[in-house]
């Protein structure tokens, strides 16, 4: 399966809207608009609807996804009349041409800011189909993408935004861009119900994943880091990522097992992802094994994108803090998903970030705070194998905001805080602060492997403080994922320039990631808005002892009373007998 990139993020950087919504904002007020003088109606209108789309997308791609293939029949548009395409043109020109271009060639004014690029309809080549490799899609296939959008890309779903008639007319108009729909009778890949999953199916699926050499592109752990990944291009010679199979919520064709299986049978046309139907016919792999591969891929991640929580909890450590990022103790520590979105505010902006989020875990032992950060990045930069990728990315994305450097830099990860924790609600500017209000920053690089601590006064304006940094770093790169452990004493040496981590206080925190093999640096990268970290107050032992002691005491006293009462009763009885 092929990849999608995280498209331009929210225009407004603040807040949780930057999660799933990040992918649908193709137009932002701060960006240069049409190179051709397109009407402002389009961007303004699109911008207005993206919020609605953003909230609708996860619901659509989640639980409903399983039923989608079954619903296909219901989605088949009514027979298209001769006027459908002309009517569709009006809708297309208003809502679609901004990205897909007036002639359907995928070259609208917004296209240069996107990777993957909007679809070029003139070839009649569509990724998500129920038809065999190389065939044109069914009308229902096109309708489904219009309705649902493509998760992980800039394409939103239009089900709630356009009427059914408008969406059907769009199908007719899109088909008119390509000669290949005339008299086409595509072969449909029939999909039965998914055979059961379970541990055995997943284990067999993993074996088939290896037998079919899926790892060559998707990597051994499915993170899109296979040996061929840096060389992949789409049919338009743009770089394309092998899908990160551990983030199934961003699969362009949906993440239900039936949908994954269908992609294995049909391939994703226009991308390097092939069809395995011939291999089934040649008996090199069974149909059941393909289903098992789908179950295995599905098992690599949750169904929905992880929920985003505003406050990261640093729990008190039981015993000593883990000393390495791959310490098994981290498996039991609560993790928080922080989405990272393209930095598209300050120039040079970056519309194609490689990193789309970070898992944050935190522990403290009353003296030190340990932050463990895990993020997917297919390359440990710099890496000679990825030079080809960078050259292609630079050639593709240069139009957007000037030349992209073609020398690979280091991978980077920054954690920022306000210099002091105050009751003041105002935080420094989230884009690495400003000259007036700097942020305190821990900046880690993979090459040289080190962490620097200092102040930042804006993107690319980081000044490390001299001397030995008081933050220690330990990093490990494993199968397309960085794991980084940053540790610091709760109280810094200089309390004027660095925050003191006090328990029971929410402390603002922000993140920034850059992949050096993707042309990223201190400005081109992926960023979060402000979140908060909260160090739990260790529970005093008395809290646990008191209830137990009270209970024991009560039970003991009660028993004592009962026993004494019984003894007295028996004593009385004896006396009575003796008297009679």
């Amino acid at each position, binding site marked *: 399966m092929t990849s999608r990139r995280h498209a331009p993020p929210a225009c407004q950087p603040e807040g949780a809207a930057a999660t799933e919504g990040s992918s649908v904002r193709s137009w932002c007020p701060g960006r240069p608009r049409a190179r051709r003088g397109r009407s402002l109606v389009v961007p303004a209108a699109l911008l207005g609807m993206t919020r609605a789309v953003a909230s609708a997308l996860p619901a659509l791609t989640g639980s409903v996804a399983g039923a989608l293939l079954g619903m296909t029949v219901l989605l088949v548009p009514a027979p298209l009349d001769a006027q459908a395409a002309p009517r569709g043109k009006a809708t297309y020109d208003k809502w679609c041409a901004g990205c897909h271009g007036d002639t359907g060639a995928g070259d609208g004014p917004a296209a240069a800011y996107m990777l993957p690029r909007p679809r070029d309809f003139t*070839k009649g080549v569509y990724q998500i189909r129920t038809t065999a490799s190389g065939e044109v899609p069914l009308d229902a296939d096109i309708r489904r993408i219009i309705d649902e959008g493509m998760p992980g890309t800039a394409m939103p779903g239009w089900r709630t935004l356009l009427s059914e008639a408008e969406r059907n007319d769009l199908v007719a108009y899109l088909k008119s861009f390509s000669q290949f729909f005339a008299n086409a009778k595509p072969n449909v890949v029939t999909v039965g119900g998914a055979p059961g999953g379970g541990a055995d199916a997943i284990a067999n699926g993993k074996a088939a994943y290896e*037998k079919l*050499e899926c790892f060559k592109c998707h990597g051994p752990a499915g993170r899109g880091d296979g040996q*061929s990944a840096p060389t*992949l291009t789409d049919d338009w010679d743009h770089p394309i990522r092998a899908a990160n199979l551990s983030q199934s919520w961003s699969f362009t064709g949906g993440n239900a097992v039936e949908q994954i299986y269908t992609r294995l049978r049909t*391939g994703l046309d226009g991308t390097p992802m092939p069809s395995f139907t011939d*291999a089934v016919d040649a008996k090199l792999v069974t149909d059941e094994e393909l289903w098992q591969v789908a179950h295995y891929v599905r098992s690599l991640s949750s169904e929905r994108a992880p929920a985003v929580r505003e406050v990261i909890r640093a729990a008190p450590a039981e015993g000593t803090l883990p000393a390495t990022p791959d310490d098994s103790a981290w498996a039991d520590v609560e993790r928080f998903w922080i989405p990272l979105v393209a930095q598209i505010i300050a120039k040079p902006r970056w519309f194609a970030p490689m990193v789309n989020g970070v898992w944050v875990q935190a522990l403290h032992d009353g003296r030190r705070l340990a932050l463990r950060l895990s993020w997917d990045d297919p390359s440990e930069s710099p890496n000679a194998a990825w030079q*080809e990728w960078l050259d292609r990315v630079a050639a593709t994305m240069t139009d957007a905001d000037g030349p992209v450097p073609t020398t690979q830099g280091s991978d980077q990860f920054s954690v920022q805080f306000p210099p002091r924790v105050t009751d003041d609600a105002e935080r420094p500017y989230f884009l690495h602060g400003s000259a007036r209000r700097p942020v305190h920053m821990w900046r880690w690089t993979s090459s040289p492997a080190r962490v620097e601590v200092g102040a930042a006064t804006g993107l690319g304006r980081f000044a490390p403080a001299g001397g030995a940094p008081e933050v220690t770093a330990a990093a490990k790169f494993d199968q397309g994922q960085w794991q980084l452990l940053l540790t610091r004493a709760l109280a810094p040496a200089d309390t004027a320039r660095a925050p003191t981590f006090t328990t029971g206080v929410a402390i603002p925190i922000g993140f920034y990631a850059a992949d050096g093999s993707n042309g990223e640096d201190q400005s081109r990268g992926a960023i979060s808005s402000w979140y908060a970290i909260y160090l739990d107050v260790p529970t005093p032992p008395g809290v646990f002892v008191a209830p137990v002691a009270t209970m024991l005491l009560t039970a003991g006293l009660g028993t004592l009373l009962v026993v004494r009462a019984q003894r007295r009763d028996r004593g009385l009885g004896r006396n009575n007998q003796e008297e009679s």
Partner: protein
Amino acid sequence: MRRSVFGLAVAGVSVALVACGGGDGGDAQVADTGGTGTAAVAAPAGGGTITGTVAFTGTPPANPPIDMSEESACAQKYQGQPTDNQVVVTDGKLADVVVYVKSGLPAGQNFQVPPQAVEIDQDGCLYKPRALAMMVNQKLTIKNSDPVAHNIKAVPKENRGFNISQPRPMTSERTFSQPEMTVPFECNIHSWMHADVAVLPHPFFATTGRDGTFTITGLPAGTYEVEAWHGKLGAKTMTVTVPEGGQGSASFTFGTAT
């Protein structure tokens, strides 16, 4: 002519393999990466032929080396480092040239599709041959002779493409319905793999092997524009007159000295 016979034999074997439901991948052509020519198709009508040679003068450009270290099953098929054989010159003769009748055939005539399949093989993580010609609707046998996975992806403009995974030795069959010069073939798992497939509206074509020779058979009498097409070096044309049942000749020269 020997090469045409060989080409027929290869095609025949591949048809047999397909009939048996799969190949065994036992191609023994180790380290022979250039010019496994598949010329010669059955003559439909007319008895004229065009024969000739494609030469190369000067120093051919160096073929880029391929790092196959990650694919040892392929790398071990070569002595020394394999190269991407974009230009194969042997004793001044150029291989992998598609020679075909570009114009001059009577209009509106339908030519019989050659019944035998043409074959492209994935062997040692390279395509053999690197340049291939076939007629519209002629069967193309796609073979994987390697014990590793290939995806074979055709990226045409006039035809519909395909992208097939062949995880182990096996064969697939496809056709193209429209003439197209040429359809690029690629493998995304091994980004160095590339082949060009010429799809022609008639059967009057041939591909040169290492000896640079070609023979186009079955031509009616006439005067034809004949093109020699090479994926890296471009195309050259010349006019050839073929008498009824007779022979025309054409020689092409590529390279720095032309």
